């Protein structure tokens, strides 16, 4: 079942196109990673999903409700964590969590207590005394404790230390097991790699790639490293092979598509070591933006 459906979404600010004909479909229970460089349109997409800004064209549906015309119905199913939590400095952490629970209309108070412990939050302190990370914990606890069908998160772990990052990942995995859908915009590629079923890569307001990590890796080159007793064989003529680097008896390269011919040439030269490695999401991200956006390279 499709939980979030974005169709031909465009947002213009004057002549500047922040989003350009963007379409996405996210299924129930999926953890969806939303990646892109700064200014590529991630936060704009989220603000459109929440009905905070109006699209120039296109529609967004959340659980079947239009995010613009049926906002209240759509928002009953949503919990949101902004990249920078803007809370009321004069309230305490506990008061803020109470207020946000009332605003949302539903809260698993037992789970909230558990999250307060896990995130090591001191709820009696005034918000103005909290560090950035602690303010972020409040927004995370409020969103997770709401047990909303859809969690929309915009850089949710900004300011969290590595230990709290692990607590966050565990909470997201639990949400996933409960069938909640998570829309995760993040710059922390390790986090996305560890959590997400599918990712979309955004560039200048357009989605350039969407798919599972495996699918994206399939589109990317495989890294090969091999050691030989003598000079490595010539592989420059083999189709799909690139980035060849020979250093003494050591060879490294990248290969796209079929590996059959490359393996045949390498095995004929009797390698003493052979290592093939899939690219990490970070490598994938960097190589993709190098390819797509020469000015970023």
């Amino acid at each position, binding site marked *: 079942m499709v939980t979030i459906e974005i169709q031909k979404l465009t947002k213009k600010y004057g002549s500047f196109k922040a989003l350009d004909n963007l379409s996405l479909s996210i299924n129930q229970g999926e953890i969806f990673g939303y990646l892109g460089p700064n200014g590529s349109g991630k936060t704009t997409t989220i603000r459109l999903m929440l009905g905070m800004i109006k699209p120039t064209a296109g529609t967004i549906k959340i659980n079947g409700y239009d995010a613009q015309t049926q906002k209240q119905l759509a928002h009953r199913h949503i919990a949101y964590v902004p990249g920078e939590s803007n809370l009321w400095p004069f309230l305490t952490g506990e008061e803020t969590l109470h207020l946000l629970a*009332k*605003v949302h209309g539903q809260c698993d108070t037992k789970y909230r207590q558990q999250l307060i412990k896990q995130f090591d939050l001191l709820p009696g302190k005034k918000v103005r005394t909290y560090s950035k990370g602690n303010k972020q914990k409040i927004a995370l606890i409020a969103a997770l404790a709401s047990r909303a069908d859809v969690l929309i998160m915009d850089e949710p772990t900004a300011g969290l230390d590595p230990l709290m990052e692990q607590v966050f990942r565990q909470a997201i995995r639990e949400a996933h097991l409960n069938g909640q859908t998570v829309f995760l915009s993040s710059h922390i590629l390790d986090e996305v790699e560890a959590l997400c079923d599918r990712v979309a890569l955004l560039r200048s307001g357009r989605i350039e790639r969407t798919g599972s990590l495996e699918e994206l890796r399939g589109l990317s080159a495989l890294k090969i490293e091999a050691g030989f007793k003598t000079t490595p064989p010539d592989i420059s003529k083999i189709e799909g092979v690139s980035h060849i680097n020979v250093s003494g008896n050591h060879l490294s390269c990248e290969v796209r598509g079929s590996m059959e011919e490359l393996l045949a040439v390498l095995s004929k030269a009797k390698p003493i070591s052979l290592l093939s490695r899939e690219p990490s999401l970070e490598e994938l991200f960097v190589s993709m933006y190098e390819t797509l956006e020469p000015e970023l390279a």
Partner: protein
Amino acid sequence: MNTSPAIKTNIELTKRRTSVIRRFAIRRVAGTATIFGLLAAIESIAQSIGIILAYPDPAARAKVIYGLASNPALGLFYGNMHTDIISPGGYMAYRIMPIMILVLSIWAMLFITKMLRGQEENGNWELLLSGRSSARNSTTDIIMGSGVGLVIIFTLTALALIIGGHSSRFAMPIGGSLIYSLLLATGALIGVAVGALTSQLASTRRKAVIYGLTIIIFMFAIRSIGNAVAGLNWIKNLSLFGWLDKVNPYNNAPVYGWLWLTLAVTILVIGLVIWLSGRRDMGSSLIADQDTSKPKLSLLNSQLGFSFKQLRNIFIGWLIASLSFVAVIVSIDKTVAKTITGSGGLTKTFSNLTGNPYARIEVAYLSAAGYFIVITLIFMIAASLGHIRNEESSGRIDNFIAGGISRLKWLTSRLGVIMIATGSIYLLASLIDYFLAKAQGIDVGFNDLIFGGINILGPVAFILGLGLLIYGILPRHLNTIIYAVVGWSFTIDIIAAALKLNSYFADSSIFKHMALVPAATPDWHTFEVLIGLALLMSVTGIWLFNRRDLVLE
């Protein structure tokens, strides 16, 4: 290891850091200092010229002014009795200088707390201190930059008085005008010193402002008691405002010593502040703060409750201001009426204010309280609208919208609270007005005052409607436009009170479109038009807000 010389040649050296921080402060202070400088200049010149125009005959003028000055109750707000009080400059120094010094000191205190504690609270201070600056240097630069605001106030007031007062009819000595302007700027300097000090004492800007207001009002109260209560004149020596009161700039022999002493003490306090700023950790305060508290959840269960929790400090502040104004004005009604009865000029002034030349003077004076109620309500509404805009610009509204609260509910909850507060303040102030009048034996009808007075809420509703319309169309400019409209109306009213203005010009003030009861008969037609316009603008503004993008800072 140091940066290599090769890289250093590529570094573009910025201006010296002192210059940068000082310029930043100057840029921030220049705009509001110009507005307050113009206000001080216009108000001063209107008072000095106005008294000559109202009483060209020196004997009649002397009778009225000595009558006022001999009334100790008026000493609460007015200045010092001195020998040259009937000259335009002397009257201006008596009539307007203490209030103007108070206003300028509060403005300067608000500004400097925003620049010092406000910047420290929102994290900008860290950026300044991570550069080539220390806490002491940055504090010094911001205070010195703010000093340009005081120079602007001095210059505008001095120019207005020198140009306006040069003719033989007014004959205001240039030396006196320069000292008068310096006294106003010194009032602002006191505000800078107090605000800078409380920024070191308090952990938040809000607390720094509360401490600052308390100190300033306490000093003003001491000065007022010294002026108003016979035998307690010595108490003025305990207040900087009392010292400034004693200078008498247009007197034949001004007492400059008190001015130099005030400047010396103020500069000493600023020096202390700079020293203190380098001794404490960034973000800390000299008065220990309570960082934890027991949860108070009762007002967090509904939008209406939370709106009240957010806005109540604004309401309480303006409620106290409104009730105090009314209580002070009405409690001296009979005394003032006795003083000015028979004085054609002041009777005319009250007639102009109330629009009824036949009203008894005590009733006309009583009606003037309505004017102060309207002013405080309008400022309260402007502050509340500013708060609403701040909730949006800071992104805090996102928590509600994402949680399923509609924009309409979010905004109307806040409007509901503002309207309830407006009605409550009006009712309480009017009741105080009524009972204090009755206590003095003034014949005034309950219905005339309380129900007839409702017509003064027309301009208040108009400002609320206008604010909502601007909020719907140009949210970023809400504060500027609303304060400009209120400031314009206020200035036009001040000028109109002293000079004859073209009626179209005078009617551009929102304060002109109300009847001050019980002296004047309520103008329900104007009231209906204002309410109709307010409703139209409100509905349009709310509709536009519902349709537009939320705009962050």
